[in-house]
């Protein structure tokens, strides 16, 4: 048990930046993203006894992280806090990034939560389909169909934006 705990702590320390970026991509608020990371770590360590095999550390932690992020979104939805504002302060070398890239990034925010999650995990975090399935508590076919849907919707949005 102690071993799994150590592996988890190591994993968290090494991957904290990725975790932050994932959380940030959901909420686009620096303090809230920090809260999500903090709460996810607390939950993970409290529930470490549910994690039986250290091979699952990453996907298991992402389950918690995604869950926390989605809960934050739900909690604050009525305040409409999730308009992406002031992105330029949160992105390094913002002025050097092509505006097109920023627009596409923003489009992802408009996808529904489940689809957005698989897109983030697949394309930003380079997770395997199998890992995404475990992290989102579903099966590989569902992940594939969500990915497909997400890409189609994004294409439509991008083309729509061009016209």
């Amino acid at each position, binding site marked *: 048990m102690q071993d799994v705990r150590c592996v988890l702590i190591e994993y968290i320390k090494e991957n904290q930046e990725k975790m932050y970026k994932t959380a940030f*991509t959901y909420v686009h608020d620096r303090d809230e993203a920090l809260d999500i990371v903090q709460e996810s*770590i607390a939950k993970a360590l409290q*529930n470490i006894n549910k994690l039986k095999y250290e091979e699952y550390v990453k996907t298991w932690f992402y389950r918690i992280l995604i869950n926390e992020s989605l809960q934050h979104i739900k909690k604050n939805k009525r305040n409409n806090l999730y308009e992406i504002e002031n992105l330029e302060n949160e*992105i390094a070398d913002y002025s050097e*990034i092509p505006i097109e890239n920023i627009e*596409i*990034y923003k489009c992802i925010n408009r996808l529904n939560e489940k689809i957005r999650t698989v897109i983030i995990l697949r394309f930003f975090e380079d997770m395997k389909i199998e890992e995404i399935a475990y992290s989102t508590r579903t099966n590989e076919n569902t992940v594939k169909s969500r990915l497909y849907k997400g890409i189609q919707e*994004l294409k439509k949005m991008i083309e729509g934006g061009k016209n």
Partner: protein
Amino acid sequence: MEELKKAKMVYDSINVPNELNYVVHRSIAKQKKNKNRIFYYFKILATTTVASFVLFVVTVNSNSTFASSISEVPIIGDIARIFTIKEYQEEDELKLVNVKMPALENTGNTELENRINYEILTKINEKIEEAEKRAEEYRDAVIQTGGSLEDFHPINIEVNYEVKYSTNEIVSFVINKFETLASAYNEQDFYNIDITNGKELNLRDVLGPDYKQIVDSSIKKQIEEREKNSDNTYFDVSDGGFDGIEDEYQNFYINESGNVVIVFQKYEIAPGYMGIQEFEIQQ
């Protein structure tokens, strides 16, 4: 997809705040500390010093952080007679339950222990049952409205407790229940027990007959102080804001310094984002 590579460039450039490293290490350290505390409550269960010595040695060897934080652990003499009687996890299609149930022991008053422990047990079980019912209703609603089971996420129920204060005379502890379904609920039960006579303490017992005036004026002053920071908002009195406590049975606990801390649940006197509101009544 080419476009997603472009978006990833943005993602990769997200600034990471300087405090992240601190936040991460603090959350890890905090959990370790809690773990050691819990160990201590288990430890008082050991009836002989030999048994507890063995436990002690095992922990020191298996947890390198234990040694460094040992100085923060309270001395055995003033540890609450509160311990974890039962800790369990349950997972099925409806729910994910995680319970750490406290119990009172070694008070020299068996009747008191039985009464309190029975109350805790029934309350926790009731809450889990209620939560399960809600989850069932919710699942049925999802399916009836044309959703698939996939749209339903098991309800998450977490019950744990915190010992706030404990001497040979008084123990004060809080049972927390968190429930997450569509939104998050948090419920707390407060126990302040006078071990010498088995009585559950109310504000009048602790603060005397003037308890209401003492509490009201202190809270009003503190709200005023907190509102100086524009991030803090409380409801106006006309909107159900704080206008004095109702009676001596107001929720409270006793903190490490032996002071009363009045607790208002989320939304009770302030908007939700303010969370649970606590007011220490300094004597």
